[in-house]
């Protein structure tokens, strides 16, 4: 009887030690689920989801505080991917957070720009170059099209230009295959 209790206690202590050690040794920094969600999000950093950037939204989803259908730039496809990752049913985008738009980049009308730097402060990815009382310009390759620079501009000199399709960006379309009618449908 005593021996049995002793064995059980020893076992418990040994396993406890191993578990305690591995909890320290194999500690995972950060939230791996939030990382995975963040990798799916489009990184537009537009805040349309109601969170200040993609990372906070990812963390909110991971904690279950936000729904998966609040990201218009990610579109239906993004929702589908998130649903797959989290093992939930995909749902249509929440219209309250906006609707998907064609990919665009911001464009500053340099004739109108007064060099106030307000847009530079608003840009979440530092894609606007310029200085006080100097003309500003968008670094198009780094612009995510988040539109956050539009409201602060006091002279409304920023517009969103949809990215036109050119040769390097051209994609083959999904082939449309004319299927042969095998059986004539009856009736009119």
């Amino acid at each position, binding site marked *: 009887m005593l021996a049995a209790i002793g064995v059980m206690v020893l076992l418990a202590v040994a396993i406890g030690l191993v578990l305690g050690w591995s909890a320290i040794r194999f500690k995972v920094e950060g939230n791996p689920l939030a990382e995975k969600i*963040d990798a799916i*999000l*489009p*990184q*537009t*950093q537009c805040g349309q989801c109601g969170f200040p*950037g*993609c*990372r906070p939204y990812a963390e909110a989803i991971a904690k279950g505080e936000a729904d998966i259908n609040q990201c218009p730039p990610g579109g239906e496809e993004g929702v589908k991917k998130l649903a797959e990752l989290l093992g939930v049913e995909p749902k249509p985008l929440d219209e309250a957070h906006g609707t998907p738009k064609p990919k665009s980049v911001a464009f500053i009308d340099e004739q109108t720009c007064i060099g106030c730097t307000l847009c530079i402060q608003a840009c*979440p*990815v*530092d*894609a606007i170059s310029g200085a006080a009382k100097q003309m500003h310009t968008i670094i198009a390759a*780094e612009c*995510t099209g988040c539109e956050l620079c539009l409201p602060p501009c006091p002279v409304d000199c920023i517009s969103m230009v949809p990215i036109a*399709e*050119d*040769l390097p*960006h*051209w*994609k*083959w*379309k*999904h*082939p449309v*295959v*004319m*299927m*042969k*009618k*095998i059986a004539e449908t009856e009736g009119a």
Partner: protein
Amino acid sequence: MSRELFKFKGGVHPPEHKAESTSRPIHAAPLPKKLVIPLRQHIGNPAKPVVEIGERVLKGQMIAAADGYISTAVHASSSGTVTAIDLQPVPHISGLPDLCITIETDGRDEWVAHAPLDYQAMEPSQLRMQLRDLGLAGLGGAVFPSAVKLDPGASHACTTLIINGGECEPWITCDDMLMRHHADEILQGVGIMRHLLGSTEILVGIEDNKPEALDSMRSAAAKLDFAVEVVKVPARYPGGGAKQMIETLTGRQVPSGKLSTDIGIQVFNVGTSYALARAIHHGEPLITRLVTVTGHVLRPQNFEVLIGTPMHTLITLAGDRDGTTGVLMGGPMMGVPMPNLDVPVVKATNCILVKSAELFPPLPKALPCIRCTRCADACPVELQPQELFRFAKAGDFGRAQEYHLFDCIECGCCSYVCPSHIPLVDFYRYAKSEIWAREKDKRAADLARERHEFRQFRQEREKKEKAEKLAAKAQAARAQAALDQAQRAELAAAPAAEGAAVSDTDAKKALIAAALARAQAKKSDAAPKNVDQLTSEQLHQIEEIEARRTKIRELARKPLESEEKKP
């Protein structure tokens, strides 16, 4: 026939239709009035224009320079004036325009100064730069910059050099005609390649349906001072593909996702070799190429064409006929339909195939895939086309990649044998470009994330720096005040002993005293100017206000005094 040949899996035997265009000699196409020369004719970065609108250029003059390592230059095909540098239609299935340089020719066809290169005396890297500046790119179809392919790399292991004379696509005969008439120059080019790559084994693979080309190449090879083995290979589509030619000649397969150079083999098309010989021995950049014009035309034949010549002029030369249903650039298996015929001939244009309803009857409508796997039997790269089709159609690109979608050479054998007439290759092209686009989006998202995170880090850092700066400033001011206080104490010959610690309160008091003194001084400096002629009533009011002010001042001073008394 000493060499043992190997057989690649799959392949098909479409009707050849080669005799149509080989019965006539090569004709030089006349100089067109206008040349439109695209800057993106090769794989890699498009060339950068180095001429201006209105500038007169000579034949062979560089009009756009290579931009980066994987790029090559573009040259004026004839002398004339640059009239435009803008977006023009190019031979691409999308019909989208691309940046081109338009030259109005003057008809004099005046050459720029050019001279042969002494390639044996040159540094290999310098020679490759020269070849890049001479606009050399592979003429077999992929148009990969030749200078890059002629770099054996650090391993120096390109022991086998294969010259690809396999022209397996039906209708096309430009390589056949080139081998028949310019075998010597092709082999001169091979000598230069051998010099750069250090190859010890040189094989020329030519299909058995080109006996004239075989004879001419063999007799030319016999005259050389190095060994070149001209090998007759059985004609089977797509035996002219680089990887299929390697397998036929050496029995070795290029592993998935690797290059032939990884197994010590480099492959060049005969046209590239000819262009290389013209470049080195005559100093001529790549400004012409042979183009087969065939199909539904009166006189199918091969033309020597200046790059930039509009396609419709060639079709007119060959005799256009009624009942044309479309034009392909390339052959019937891999060719791409041209959106219009104003597009220019480019370095990749090997054939202009005019279609008619009799020669190319429209494909019957597709039926559903019955998974008969005839496509898998025909696939020369041993893929599972029926599975790839299923995944591509469903948008399951991850699975398509697992099934080695990117090993597909788009040869069209699967579509050719499909009993349901499904345009399978279109689905693979769609899936590939969709995957590339997604990878590009992913890279853009990663960049945005990185920049956003850096911005947050920077804002955090700036905040901290600002706080530190303020703290330092406050500290400095306090120290200064303390010093002032101490000096004042000394001046007043206060009984306080030297070196006595000056308390914080003293410092504050001194600060306030100094500020008050400054305010007093300012006040006396700037005497009010509107107090000269006032009524007694107004004066009285002022006095009242002054009295109130003194009272407030007294009140304000009190807590200070009480503080003073505390210690």
